[in-house]
């Protein structure tokens, strides 16, 4: 059965970016269709680690990250649940002097952005975080960071958008989108046809085809972060843990389960999905048992992974298309989208309503890849690529 919907905005991709944009647009009074090929928030937005972290982001993301930072404590009022958000602090560990130097350099680089980073030496770290074992040289604490539950937050943003009047069409993959005189025409699953003045491409790891359809090919790859979760335990892990140089990240939820990541999964035959490898899961488990003695006698009850889009420079694409009026891209969050996504949603809504955003997003233009000659775009030096296998 075919139907034609007329909307101000069609959003392709019901992850956290698309859902929060849909909600913000509805609050502005615009009509919205939010389309997802599966369930909203079932991909990277819903199955990611759940770090709500500003620390470690490059300076060009800071304004956006700070904008999102004030949204997280207000989730209850915005979407009706707190999403298990806790401002636990984010502690980034240095296992070598070089890593500590890198944390110090980072603290200097972002000094003006209000992260209030606290550098902690070896002895102080032992004293304040005695549950961390191993030869840790020092750490950087961002007390205002925290963590939340992605599977609740992402799905509930979509639900809130629906309750606010957005037309949420799940299991409705967009098969075709084209520019027509009065805006855009989209064809999607179940015979759905949509006319919209604006289109938002927030299709995550699947956004590349839509960008390319409008003459904007992008270096969008896929990564498959994989995680394990323990049985519920006495709460001991009081901060969200990261590591300079990668290899492990961990948090403990209020119910007592510890979530630990640091390895990558493999795509399945269906490249849209991935699954953790057995050896990867055991590697994460062993690293966790080594770093946190409280976990030594405990059990992992599940592991999982997700499919996430990654740009070659690890910065997302956010902003207007350079080829097509009223087309807006927001994808490629490269494994670090969860915290900033609700801020991005607001920015997208502003772009549609006002043609511009009060938050600077110039660093994320889609044409930066066309401008760069094989290396990094001017003004953006990506952090050293984190290696999952580094220890």
């Amino acid at each position: 059965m075919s139907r034609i919907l007329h909307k101000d905005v069609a959003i392709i991709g019901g992850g956290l970016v698309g859902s929060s944009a849909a909600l913000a647009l509805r609050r502005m009074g615009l009509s919205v269709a939010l389309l997802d090929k599966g369930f909203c928030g079932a991909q990277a937005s819903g199955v990611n680690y759940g770090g709500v972290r500003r620390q470690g982001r490059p300076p060009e993301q800071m304004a956006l990250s700070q904008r999102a930072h004030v949204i997280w404590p207000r989730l209850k009022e915005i979407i009706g649940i707190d999403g298990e958000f806790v401002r636990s602090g984010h502690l980034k560990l240095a296992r070598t002097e070089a890593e500590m130097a890198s944390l110090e350099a980072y603290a200097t680089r972002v000094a003006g952005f209000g992260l209030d980073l606290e550098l902690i030496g070896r002895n102080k770290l032992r004293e304040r975080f005695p549950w961390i074992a191993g030869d840790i040289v020092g750490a950087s604490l961002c007390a205002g960071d925290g963590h939340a539950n992605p599977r609740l937050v992402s799905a509930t943003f979509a639900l809130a958008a629906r309750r606010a009047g957005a037309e949420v069409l799940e299991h409705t993959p967009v098969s075709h989108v084209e520019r027509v005189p009065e805006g855009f025409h989209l064809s999607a699953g179940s015979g759905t046809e949509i006319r919209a003045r604006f289109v938002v491409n927030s299709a995550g790891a699947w956004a590349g085809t839509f960008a390319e359809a409008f003459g904007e090919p992008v270096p969008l790859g896929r990564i498959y972060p994989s995680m394990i979760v323990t049985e519920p335990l006495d709460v001991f892990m009081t901060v969200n843990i990261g590591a300079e140089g990668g290899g492990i990240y961990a948090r403990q939820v209020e119910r007592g389960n510890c979530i630990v990541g640091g390895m990558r999964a493999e795509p399945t035959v269906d490249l849209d999905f991935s699954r953790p490898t057995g050896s990867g899961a055991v590697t994460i488990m062993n690293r966790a048992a080594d770093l946190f003695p409280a976990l030594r006698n405990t059990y992992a009850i599940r592991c999982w992974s997700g499919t996430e889009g990654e740009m070659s420079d690890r910065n997302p694409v956010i902003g207007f298309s350079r080829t097509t009026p009223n087309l807006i891209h927001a994808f490629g969050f490269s494994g670090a989208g969860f915290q900033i996504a609700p801020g991005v949603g607001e920015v997208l809504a502003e772009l549609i309503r006002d043609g511009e955003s009060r938050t600077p997003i110039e660093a994320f233009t889609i044409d930066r890849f066309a401008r760069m000659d094989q290396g990094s775009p001017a003004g953006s030096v990506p952090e050293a690529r984190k290696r999952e296998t580094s220890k």
Partner: protein
Amino acid sequence: MSDALRPLIVGAGPTGIRAAQTLVDAGIRPIVVDEAAAGGGQIYRQRLVPDERTPRDLYGSETGKATALHETFARIRDRIDYLPQALVWNVQGKAADVAAGGRTRRLNFSHLILATGATDRVLPFRGWTTPGVFTLGGAQIALKSQGCAIGERVVFLGSGPLLYLVAWQYVKAGARVAAVLDTAPFSSKLHLLRGLLSQPGVVLRGFRYAAELMARGVPVHFGVEPDQIEGETRVTGMIWRERGKEHRLACDAVGYGFALRSETQLADLAGCRFVFDGRDRAWRPERDLAGRTSVSGLYIAGDGAGIAGADAAELAGERAGFAVLEDAGLTVDRARIAVLERKLAAIQRFRDVLEAAFPFPDKWANSVDDDVLLCRCEEISIGQARTAAREQEVRELNRLKALTRVGMGRCQGRMCASAAAEILAAAHGQPLEAVGRLRAQPPIKPLPLGIAADGEAA
């Protein structure tokens, strides 16, 4: 035999042992991995050490089958690579991750036969987590393997042939059975008369159990609607309704179950296509009569492939063993295969009779109260699932898990997924198959974080 042929059999119950025997007889050396300390599976489970009881005491009318199976396993023991007390916790491609004795290693295989069996299908009702409540299978294991009754005054409840068998075994062993509460009406048992022609032995045995229970003064009630198990810290009584009237009985233990559910996690991880089985009210791996799944080189047989019972499990295990040989291009005994397939088909027809005689309690999903616990691991109530269905428009089982945590705990939904599916289907008045099935995730059972990892093993 060719080194290239390295079949892995998961499970050493009736299915796994017969599959292994078939391969051994053809000169092939399979790997057999089993969680238990000794072969036999749950149905023919062996004691950890011998005791004064005879096999007849333990296995009753099935003694011949049990001892034959145990003897077969002992006979092929040095012609297989047997890993007892070992858990296959992941399957990917042609390799399985196996944990045993604090170590995990990767086993490569040429063919995989999943003989993973089944566990009790349980439905929650008030008090089902109280100490003293066990599954029917659990009650049977306590008796057979451990020589214990689950209490001094035991009530058995549910629907299925196991209900009468376990109650009878308890009485025979000298336990006091306070009552047998059958959720199906007495009239449903008349369907068994249809089965007299095809499987007279099974049917007559069933009648004998019921008759002996009644002769020994065990009250047997039909058409029972369980209301609650009483007791704060342990079972003190059972309340149910029967023809609209409330009944109450003092007891200190309850064993219950509603037939069985297949263990399908490994088939799922291996990428098998699933189909909905209306009789089992569950999704199960798609397979042909020989046990071939949608994945090349992967076979599934026995109760893990859809509930058919122990006799079928032995036949299907042997048939799957032949399928491996056939697919490897080896000669097989065609006449024997024809016999196996004929017998399996007859049992399949008889399963329809059993299902009619021991029906699922259809009313449960709409009558169970909101505050009853649905997921005993995460402690999520029936009401929370219904609310998610209603207010968040949840229609699919994995979505329910994501939003409510039902099935997210240590047991990965083994104890609650059947019930959760029934609740979700009833909440929207949609067919059971429409709610889907929980996806399996490795490790399929809890795995210690400090487990030592060995490299690849042949």
